[in-house]
């Protein structure tokens, strides 16, 4: 048992202080996307919705509807569009399912 005890002491403490202190390991985590409002046109929105493998994106009128609950942070929408970037948000717990559904305004149609 001494063997284990000494090894443990020499390693030190690896336990995170989260949530009392931020932990830089969270920077490694893949996170859901963030969208530039007014930058994505309706056609592009439809394409993004079609390529999402988890049905987290759809277009409703002049808005892109993003369901952060269905999102798997796979990055396909970010790869497809310069108006989409990683959000960096990893603290996503919600007490209401609706709070995870976000609406982003699309680019207004030409001529307006």
């Amino acid at each position: 048992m001494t063997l284990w005890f000494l090894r443990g002491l020499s390693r030190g403490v690896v336990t995170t202080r989260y949530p009392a202190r931020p932990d830089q390991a969270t920077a490694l985590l893949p996170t859901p996307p963030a969208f530039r409002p007014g930058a994505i046109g309706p056609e592009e929105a439809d394409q993004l919705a079609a390529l999402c493998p988890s049905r987290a994106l759809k277009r409703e009128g002049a808005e892109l509807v993003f369901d952060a609950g269905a999102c798997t942070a796979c990055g396909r929408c970010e790869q497809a569009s310069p108006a989409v970037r990683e959000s960096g948000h990893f603290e996503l717990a919600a007490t209401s399912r609706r709070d995870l559904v976000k609406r982003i305004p699309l680019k207004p149609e030409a001529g307006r």
Partner: protein
Amino acid sequence: MTAVLPARFELEAAELARGGGRLADMFAAGQDPVTLHLVWALDGERRYVITSCEISGEEYPSLSDLAPAAFLEECEIYEQFGIRPANGRPLNRVVLPPHAGPGFPRLGRQPEQEPAELRAAHTVGGHAFEFPFGPVRQVGVESLYYGLVTSGEEMVDLYLFTWHKHRGLEWRLQGQDPRAALFTVERAEGLSAVAMGWAFAAAVEAAAGLEPAADVQRTRAVALELERLYNHAAATAALCAATGLSVGQSAAEIVLEKLLRLNAAAFGHRYLFGVLDTGGTRRAPDAEVLRTELPRVHDELRRAASALLATNSFADRLEATGIVTAEQAGRLGLVGPVARASGIAIDTRLTQPSPPYASHPPAIAVRKTGDVLARFEVMQDEAAESVRLIGELLDAGTASGGTEPPARAGSGLGWAESSRGEALAWVRLDDRGQIARARLRPASVRNWRGFDDACRSQNVFTDVPIIEASFWLTVAGMAR
């Protein structure tokens, strides 16, 4: 792939089995007629052969006499396609849940009769009793239903039900675009995401005539070896948990967490999701971070493992526990570390080498005793070998890049050596290049059938979690 006439079907199979062929998988495809496909691994000749036979009636010649390993596949084919082997023996419910009536989605037509719920008769001094355990089991493990048959402490028999975790993945994949389908395939057995993704991508590439470049093949192998490493570390932690050695468990968990963070740093995801693509990979690894950190983390694992082997309270629980004999492993068609620990030297990185393993062969880890200790030792040897291989592959150069498969018909087989063993995938693409039939066969589909033999040999209840950790399979991979 050779198509065989029904008359020659049995003869061909007998010939292949006699010539040392291992029946790696059996599945059916199509409706009216249904075609039966047999995947034979000719390990000595370093290739696979698929024989196929159209079944116009309801029966086909039984293969479980030639290849007892085929029994569970025959059951699955019956549930999904309604065709059965001609030996008249009852077939068990394996894949679909009991309420799967006429409207339930199947790959083919509904069987005439309900599958049976039979197990072998138990006679142990007349006092054996059966008790169901699960599917909701201990903390943080997948749902799994065991039927334990015992005369007290001794394990007389153990049978498993996994239909409560059947997501119908092969059914879902029908009609999907093969490149987009990788998202679903990775999640067939998430802990083998790279292996299943690679096997499936390779099947699509074989069907479409694509050949990925050497550097992206090396990227795939780096990811696969990282997957093998973290799984073996996780199995080590699970073994410590099962033997009640919390200190060892913590040591192994520290290594596991560091490996998962390394996966995220190198490939963008702790479990390496989203790496595989058709024709290559979606990402290339951060070679620098792997080169600097990996040897250090592996060294911790190595020291923890040797400390564990020097700890009697751990090593004594592993020795002579959960023995799978070479005969059992061969008869049941087991693969991976479980087979290798029992002396069966199959490792598709060597026995069916495809790039890049043909130019970067790993040393194979084999033991003879077939107990939990042997499986533990095989995993540690493989972990060391994976680190060495990753270094070699990074030195040779890695890159990313994929291809949209062309929109035309074809079929193909793909494989990869997951941390659990040989993972297979087969795909048929229709004229538009969409999936007409996808077969997914993670190693778990094979190796769970060795679990009851391992539990039966002179073991008691408290050995079961230890044996389960040493197999390190998943229910998701078996149930799909």
